[in-house]
């Protein structure tokens, strides 16, 4: 049977199933194949906080969304065009997000009475007309997989498990994806179990062939490669990119990297990744708690390493006192906060941007430090390098505010060459710096950077003591002198304020916008997509996105002043908005969503349309 091939410019697919159904893996593989085809991509995994909630329940649903297109994409997509629902729970949990007319591929084998009842379906939605608005493709995924593997020599349980590969095969056929890399991947993954390699490959092929032969699927789709900047790409998540950025910072600074970390969702994967790179001189220590983790990192920094600690909000709260010590000691330290929904334990697997206040103000006394934030998964690599650059050059703790959305989302990354990465080499103090040529003054500042010398233990003649009590200017001796304290408080603020950071860019293609959207961190994608959509509709709008939250770019005040209206969308209750209002006395209007989910482009587009039209 010859199938019709239809061209599409973009597709959003969501794979959804039970936590045990392997949806993250399925999504990952589809993404990887799609990436190799040259489409631009953005992905959004979404999994429950429970390790494995009871099978077939709503809280147990795990999903993975991938958006791919023949042009550059900025978000994982608002509403899926295709939903793969491995069971009734997956269908129910995701239905509301679909566009009318979307394709739904359901695994009919799982639509048993019991499973339907588990999620409160009185009758099967496949049998009534509740799915009339969608294009439903009922597929007996499990039984066909088991059937296909009848002779594969694996246990029935293993055969059933391979149903995700059947689904993947089917989708790959539908969207004309290449599959060699998946077959290779299966060989690697099950290297010790050749029977499973065979079974999974067979399941994949069965799925593909099912698409090819059955009449149920009449159309295949193609999405042409996107025109992307030439180069070598890989698909990468934010956490991976961040870890690689830290490795790169070690290589480019020629310093050992020391990570002190305590596991916490969604930051743990950075620890996991870095633990595998000992060959770069990266030491990872799983500490007894967050306070020990940052303490050990600070101790390592004191000894001349690039000390790093990775955590999420609750961990940053616990680390506050030690970070305040780091501010007083003026040592380099990178604190990574992969934000999640709070307060308290909140929703650990959901995203939020509500730790900006904590990063800026969450310490006792006046304890200023630098704050940077990545705007996309691959940007985490550069943000980590930038955090390390500031920490090392200006001898200060730097908080890097990632969040669950960029951390677990992925996108294609145009790989840089090592040479083009910033040179982060530092100079340790080796000689006395006093006027007499003999004394060492640990708090004598470099007039250019306002940084104090980094004299690491082991350096002969520079023995000195530092601590958390107020220090006399230059000598670093304990001082209770009022004027000295006032001076030190101000210079600590000044040295952060004076860190040169790049000006913020404004995207205002036609230069005729009267409304500026100001964002920071992971909202870059949805804001960008919304602005693009508005512009395409002839509604001018300008976008500026902050990588540096402290210090703020020098031109920000000017930029803000150029627009009639400034809107600040944030996944919090208006923390950046408050900052710029206070600083520039600009009536920046917050637009907030604190639902644990990223903004959809549509939400922002609607809101901004109102603003632009009323501006």
């Amino acid at each position, binding site marked *: 049977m010859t199938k019709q091939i239809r061209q599409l410019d973009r597709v959003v697919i969501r794979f959804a199933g039970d936590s045990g159904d392997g949806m993250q893996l399925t999504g990952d593989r589809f993404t990887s194949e799609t990436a190799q085809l040259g489409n631009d991509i953005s992905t959004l995994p979404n999994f429950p906080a429970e390790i494995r909630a009871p099978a077939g329940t709503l809280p147990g649903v795990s999903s993975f969304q991938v958006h791919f297109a023949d042009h550059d994409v900025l978000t994982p997509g608002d509403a899926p065009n295709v939903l793969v629902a491995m069971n009734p729970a997956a269908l129910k949990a995701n239905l509301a997000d679909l566009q009318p007319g979307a394709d739904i591929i359901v695994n009919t084998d799982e639509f048993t009475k019991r499973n339907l009842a588990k999620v409160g379906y009185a009758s099967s939605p496949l049998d009534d007309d509740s799915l009339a608005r969608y294009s439903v493709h009922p597929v007996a995924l499990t039984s066909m997989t088991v059937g296909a593997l009848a002779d594969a020599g694996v246990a029935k349980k293993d055969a059933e498990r391979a149903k995700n590969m059947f689904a993947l095969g089917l989708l790959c056929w539908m969207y004309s994806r290449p599959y060699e*890399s998946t077959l290779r991947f299966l060989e690697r993954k099950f290297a010790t179990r050749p029977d499973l390699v065979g079974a999974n490959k067979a399941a994949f092929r069965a799925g593909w062939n099912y698409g090819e032969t059955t009449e149920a699927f009449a159309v295949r789709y193609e999405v042409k490669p996107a025109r992307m900047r030439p180069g070598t*790409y890989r698909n990468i998540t934010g956490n991976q990119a961040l870890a690689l950025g830290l*490795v790169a910072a070690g290589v480019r600074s020629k310093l050992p990297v020391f990570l002190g970390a305590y596991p916490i969702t969604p930051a743990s994967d950075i620890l996991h990744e870095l633990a595998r790179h*000992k*060959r770069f001189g990266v030491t990872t220590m799983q500490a007894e708690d967050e306070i020990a983790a940052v303490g050990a990192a600070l101790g390592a920094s004191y000894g001349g390493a690039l000390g790093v600690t990775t955590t999420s909000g609750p961990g940053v709260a616990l680390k506050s*006192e030690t970070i305040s010590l780091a501010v007083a000691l003026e040592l380099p330290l990178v604190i990574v906060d992969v934000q999640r929904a709070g307060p308290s334990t909140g929703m650990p697997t959901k995203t939020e941007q509500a730790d900006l206040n904590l990063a800026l103000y969450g310490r006792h006394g006046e304890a200023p430090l630098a704050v940077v934030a990545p705007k996309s998964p691959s940007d985490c690599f550069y943000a980590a390098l930038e955090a390390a650059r500031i920490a090392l050059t200006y001898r200060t703790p730097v908080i890097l505010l990632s969040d669950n959305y960029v951390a677990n989302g992925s996108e294609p990354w145009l790989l840089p060459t*090592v040479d083009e990465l910033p040179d982060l080499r530092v100079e340790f103090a080796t000689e006395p710096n006093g006027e007499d040529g003999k004394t060492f003054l640990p708090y004598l500042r470099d007039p250019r950077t306002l940084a104090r010398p980094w004299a690491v233990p*082991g350096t002969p003649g520079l*023995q000195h*003591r530092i601590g958390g009590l107020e220090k006399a200017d230059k000598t670093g001796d304990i001082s209770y002198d009022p004027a000295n304290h006032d001076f030190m408080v101000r210079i600590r603020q000044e040295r952060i304020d004076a860190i040169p950071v790049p000006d913020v860019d404004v995207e205002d293609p036609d230069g005729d916008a009267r409304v500026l959207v100001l964002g920071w961190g992971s909202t870059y994608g949805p804001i960008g997509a919304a602005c693009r959509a508005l512009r395409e509709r002839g509604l001018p709008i300008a976008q500026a996105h902050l990588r540096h939250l402290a210090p703020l770019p020098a031109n920000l005040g000017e930029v803000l002043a150029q627009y009639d209206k400034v809107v600040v969308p944030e996944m919090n209750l208006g923390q950046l908005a408050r900052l710029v209002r206070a600083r520039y006395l600009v009536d920046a209007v917050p637009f907030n969503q604190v639902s644990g989910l990223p903004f959809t482009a549509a939400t922002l587009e609607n809101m901004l349309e109102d603003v632009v039209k009323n501006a």
Partner: protein
Amino acid sequence: MPSPIPVTPVKLTGKDFKSDQEVRWCPGCGDYAILAAIQQFMPELNIPRERTVFVSGIGCSSRFPYYMNTYGMHSIHGRAPAIATGLSVSRPDLSVWVVTGDGDALSIGGNHLIHALRRNVNLKILLFNNRIYGLTKGQYSPTSEVGKITKSTPVGSADAPFNPLSLALGAEATFVARTIDSDRKHLQSVLRAAAEHEGSAFVEIYQNCNIFNDGAFDLIKDPATRDEHLIRLEQGQPITFGNDGRFSVVHPEGSFGLTVQEGGTPIIHDATVDDPAYAFALTRLSGSDLTTTPIGVFRNVSRPSYDQVVQKQLADAAAEATGTPEAMLADLLNAGDTWTTG
């Protein structure tokens, strides 16, 4: 394994270890004696001053690093073991010492302490135990005796104290010792053993706070009573004490503990037995009341230090590495599924 810490080329003296900072404890404080003993002792180690680091928390005792002409960090309350761990693990060429107090180490810092001991991090931990919070002006501490009347417990404290050495042993410490501020020779002998130990060495130093808990250790310091209460542990020697050694520390048959007896067959002290049960039994000889208080090295056994294992993992990984770091980084970035457009 040869020590990664270099030997000092020139012989140093105690004076070389005095910093230029004025010492600011209360006149008569036991901390002075400890400081003097340590400054005098350090040259023995033949470690260059710049390779020695003292890390402390907060408390009177924690002012210590300021007075040593070495590298030093006066950190925050309770966190010295954690900070020192990061330093020690990443810098095997340094000799890292932690100075802490009973509040600093056992109250707020209890968790870092027990984890450092469990890990056997290569730290020499000196706990100045005055059984009181000195710096905050006299509240009871986790080593104060039950019923202690202080500013925060005007009708007496309600909780039993830790026995710091029992706690350390429960936390898998490999080296555990006790000494006293006023006995310089003994103090230095314990430091010597601690310095030689690879891994965590935990040393409790009884220290008099003459302002808020004066005379806490008089029973074992006062020449009039000392000999009848103080038990000096010496490796390989029978454990006896009292005038003319009239008391023996004996191990009653069938018992797991130790008791003191006039006459009787004393046990022979051996700090190197692997089973911590012996050292644990020794620690139970003394409670808050000090009537029979052992000092010396209770336990001294060998177990790989955390630092060694971590360094070995790094070295193994480095040995397998090929190419320059830059080349390896390029490979790392390009790892996995990549594609090229052009």
